[in-house]
């Protein structure tokens, strides 16, 4: 059974529908990706799942229970974490404090320290700079903070929205390597990307959004050859 199941949702900003009957299934332990050009509704779909912009029709079910109508902090408490679009690190906090916010719902301080140590192992650079204000770091380093912060909650599912946006090719490559490692830890990944080729290379399954509708889905290998995917991006 799917771990997360989005069932025919309509989502609107100010009464204008942006998503139209969108459905999607995420299998546990997999990397599922959502492809689609700018403005096709990928971020809105994530906002719907997190309860930031709840859908007004349809249902979203995580591990057997509906998320619709729940406040965001409860949804996060169910085991869903997110690395938001644009990284959104807390600029006036140190690296260590940013990580601490990521583990906000965990009260066991020793466990928080253990997870921080794991994040520092993944990103040694963050360890060197743990007391630096995150807002003063380079884009690539801020991306590390954002990813590390998302891991601090030790989520069952991690939603990642365009992690390689604005990064240099070197960091993009590193990013995909990290995402694979996160998945190897047993965390389900829902990945939104514009970088079609590299995304489909690491994903197991993919969906294609176009103008707020799901227009294609399939195994990543099949999608890579699919004409509709090419149409959604290039034509």
């Amino acid at each position, binding site marked *: 059974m799917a771990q997360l199941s989005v069932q025919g949702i309509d989502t609107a900003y100010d009464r204008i529908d942006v998503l139209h009957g969108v459905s999607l299934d995420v299998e546990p332990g997999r990397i599922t990706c959502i492809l689609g050009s700018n403005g096709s509704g990928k971020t809105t779909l994530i906002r719907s799942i997190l309860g930031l912009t709840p859908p007004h029709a349809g249902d979203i079910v995580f591990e057997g229970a509906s998320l619709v109508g729940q406040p*965001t902090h409860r949804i996060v408490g169910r085991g869903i974490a997110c690395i938001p679009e644009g990284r959104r690190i807390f600029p006036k906090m140190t690296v260590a404090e940013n990580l601490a916010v990521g583990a*906000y719902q965990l009260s066991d301080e020793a466990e928080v320290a253990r997870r921080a140590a794991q994040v520092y192992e993944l990103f040694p650079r963050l360890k060197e700079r743990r007391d630096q204000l995150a807002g003063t770091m380079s884009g690539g380093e801020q991306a590390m903070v954002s990813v590390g912060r998302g891991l601090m909650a030790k989520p069952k599912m991690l939603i990642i929205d365009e992690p390689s946006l604005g990064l240099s090719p070197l960091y993009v490559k590193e990013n995909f390597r990290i995402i694979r490692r996160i998945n190897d830890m047993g965390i389900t990944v829902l990945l939104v990307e514009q970088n079609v080729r590299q995304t489909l290379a690491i994903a197991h399954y993919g969906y294609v959004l176009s103008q707020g509708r799901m227009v294609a889905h399939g195994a990543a290998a099949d999608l890579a050859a699919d004409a509709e995917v090419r149409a959604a991006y290039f034509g």
Partner: protein
Amino acid sequence: MSLDIFSQYLINCLMLGMIYAMVAVGFTLFFGVLDIIQFSHGDVLMVGGFTALVTYAGAQALGVANPWLQLALMVLIATALTAGLGVLVARYLVLPLKNAPPLNTLLITLMMGMVLREGVRLAYPNGSNPQPFPRLLPGGVWSVGGFEARIDSTILLLVGLALITGLHLLITRSKLGLAIRAVAQDGETARIMGINFNWIVLLTFGIGSGMAALGGVMNGLYYTEINFGVGLLLGVIGFAAAILGGLGNLYGAILGGFLFAALQTVGAVVLPMLSQHIPSSYKDVFAFAVVIALIAWRPTGLIAEKSTERA
């Protein structure tokens, strides 16, 4: 100026600065989490002062005679009830207007301030006139060399210092403080991190309003009287201090409070020296004029933070 006069001016200046700072931190905390100005904040302070007064009367009626016990009851009850008032203002007036134009929040809290002010004036016996506030701290003076200070003022100053230090530690070291800062820097991302946004806003209003109540009690103990309009001037000064320090910046607000008190003191001392025709009561005119000039010179406050933070 002889040393004993100098010490009086200094203690008075520090005392005023402390009270202003305690009001200003509320304005700056509320602006931090919700980007709004709570214009009834000064009147919330006044309610804190009057709650302490009512508690004092109640304690006397119940036969509690020990002044320290009376004071402890006044501080506890006034802080708790006033924090509760702040939470109610946030829950029923401010949060429901979160997505409305900020002007509506401004107006509704301004009107709330009038309700509190007029409510206390009418409901408190003889409320239109200043009410005596009990002298509960030990009287007397201590002196070192020619420097002398009243014992009660010194206690108030030390307590104020402890409170502001405590608030600083709460904001910078505790988990609650971490959440308040997260909400202040980016409310939506704070929610994505699993922080209960509304809960943090309510707690912030509770903390800020509790600080204002403590400021109200300190003000009453210092002047040994309180009147229903005390929140009006203290509110404007606290707001000015918060703006001066850069809204959203805790240290800026504290600095702004002490700066305003320093300006008033300088005005009181220097103006009569410049001309016999300018009495020291022009100190407020002088202080506000300088603040206006400072804000015109540094529109984002002396310590600009919020603007760079949002960039």
